[in-house]
């Protein structure tokens, strides 16, 4: 099995990880090299915020230093200001939540004037998420962002379920996804990540299509399309009827997606996300093949979650005798060395 004794093989359920020993050459936290490279961009550590779960960083400043994270992934920006949907926009679900915000945001002009400079002034690296209704809109956003100070990467949101097409998004069609990626790559001065939806028959096919079109890396996963019905009113809870499911409920789906894509495309950098609440959750994504992770819905539970997850990840790596974070990326795919 694994090179490190971490499982209770008798029960198959690991109820109390704290009672297990990880003393295989355990080292101190400070000696773990947390540097990672994501799509050719060197980041001081692998823990990022997630698009839509950190606004543009400023609201989290009372709780964490945005420069202390690997990067801040901003809420998807569109060309024009966008109101978002009517309320209710949220429904709590078991170990998760549905959201149906509808990409509310100030538009690219205000973003470039206020939001990105704020992040740059604080020394934070920005992964700017862009979203649009057409290939041309995505390309125009990439053009507007080219050369902006603080911009480290673009994340192309071709998979937000809260759009008029109700989940029939670019990321459900390999050709449409490739068209967007190709157009953004032609305009972007920074590496481009394509954000993929798990709501597809074969995520590896979509991933391959995006990479062929020039994507420097992949972000996965976006939310799953879901729905809750109010049993008193007999009506959908969300004003938008359907919403995106996030949180720990989707974590196994996300780890599976990262695993499958890394297995098929081992050279493609992955930003992994989906229900990460702890350092050990983050480690699962790294082991599956992600070079970095985004902490999203956990921020609603704990505004300081990204820095906490980073600290926990560092500790857990040290406990396992790992001195370089890059050594664990994709390690779950490798044959055990007994």
């Amino acid at each position, binding site marked *: 099995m694994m090179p490190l004794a971490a499982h209770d093989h008798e029960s198959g359920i690991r109820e109390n990880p704290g009672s297990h020993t990880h003393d295989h050459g355990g080292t101190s936290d400070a000696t773990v090299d947390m540097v990672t490279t994501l799509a050719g961009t060197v980041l001081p550590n692998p823990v990022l915020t997630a698009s839509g779960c950190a606004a543009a960083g400023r609201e989290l400043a009372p709780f964490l230093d945005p420069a202390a994270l690997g990067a801040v992934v901003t809420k998807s920006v569109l060309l024009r200001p966008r*109101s978002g949907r009517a309320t209710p926009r949220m429904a709590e679900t078991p170990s998760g939540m549905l959201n149906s915000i509808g990409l509310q945001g100030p*538009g690219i002009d205000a973003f470039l004037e206020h939001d990105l400079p704020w992040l740059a002034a604080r020394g934070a690296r920005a992964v700017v998420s862009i979203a649009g209704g057409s290939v041309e809109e995505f390309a125009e956003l990439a053009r507007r962002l080219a050369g902006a100070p603080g911009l480290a990467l673009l994340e192309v949101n071709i998979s937000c379920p809260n759009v008029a097409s109700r989940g029939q998004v670019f990321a459900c069609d390999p050709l449409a996804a490739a068209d967007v990626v190709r157009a953004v790559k032609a305009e972007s001065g920074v590496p481009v990540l394509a954000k993929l939806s798990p709501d597809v028959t074969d995520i590896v096919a979509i991933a391959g299509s995006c990479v062929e079109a020039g994507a420097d890396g992949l972000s996965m996963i976006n939310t799953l399309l879901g729905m809750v019905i109010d049993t008193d009113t007999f009506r959908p809870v969300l004003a938008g009827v359907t919403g995106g499911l996030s949180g720990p409920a989707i974590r196994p789906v996300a780890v599976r997606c990262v695993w499958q894509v890394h297995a098929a495309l081992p050279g493609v950098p992955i930003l992994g996300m989906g229900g990460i609440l702890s350092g050990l959750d983050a480690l699962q994504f790294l082991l599956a093949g992600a070079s970095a992770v985004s902490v999203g819905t956990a*921020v*609603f539970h704990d*505004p300081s979650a990204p820095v906490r997850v980073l600290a926990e990840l560092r500790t857990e790596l040290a406990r396992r005798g790992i001195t370089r974070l890059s050594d664990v990326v994709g390690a779950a795919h490798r044959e055990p060395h007994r």
Partner: protein
Amino acid sequence: MSARVVSNEPAGAYHLITLDAPAVAAGAEPGQFIAAAVGGPQTALLLRRSFALYTADPATGLIQIVVAEHGPGTAWLVRVRPGTPLDVVGPLGRPFTLPAEPGTAVLVGGGYGSAPLFDLARRLRAIGSTVHMVVGAGSAERLFGTADARTVADSVVVTTDDGSVGVRGLVTDALPGLLGPRGVSAVYACGPMAMLRAVGETAASYDVPCEVAVEESMACGIGVCMTCVLPVVGVDGRSRMVRSCIEGPVFDAGRVRWKDVGTLPVDVLGADAMDGH
């Protein structure tokens, strides 16, 4: 940050929870709220629950909230035992605006929505204002703070829909008698949205400024999730979908588009961009 439950007592239909939370108590203003994680360390309930501060005492470090049980999160909270650690974030949100000069204020609370008004009344009295309170609810057990009201206000009107205590009727029924003759300089209200709308419209008809603390469902409480929005008219005349957690919960009642709450009015900034995608 971690707070500790000091006591948890029934108060009519509600529970009054006292927390040792010095960092919250130190900077809190009336109208602000806390967001509490519920369900303990291994909870499957990810979203925080927001509660207006009923009291916040910097000297003792104690804060108090009023909780009504209406879901799995509040069901857990009303049963939480003294000594239990509770993860709270706060104080959050924009508080009520205190006037620069003393005046006469009417404070209107519906149900446990009255909770933030008592500290507000104390502040207003401390600067020399006269305070009249209207405290109402559907029935006697759903009133909150009527005894407090008598200690912090110059006059108190209690209303219940069923007439079980005080005057039968709605809180707004008491307003003409207060707003008509007395030279009232401000109305402050907290309670259900329909009540806030009615109080705001009544205050407007008497040309009295009115601030309300709204109750919108929130996921994060800190301004990142964009869940708790409502349509509000800005100083520039444009309507926007505004976050009640950081741009509120206290709003000028005249700027909230009450009849459009829960909808997307076509003239709201950015509504035109919702077509197509």
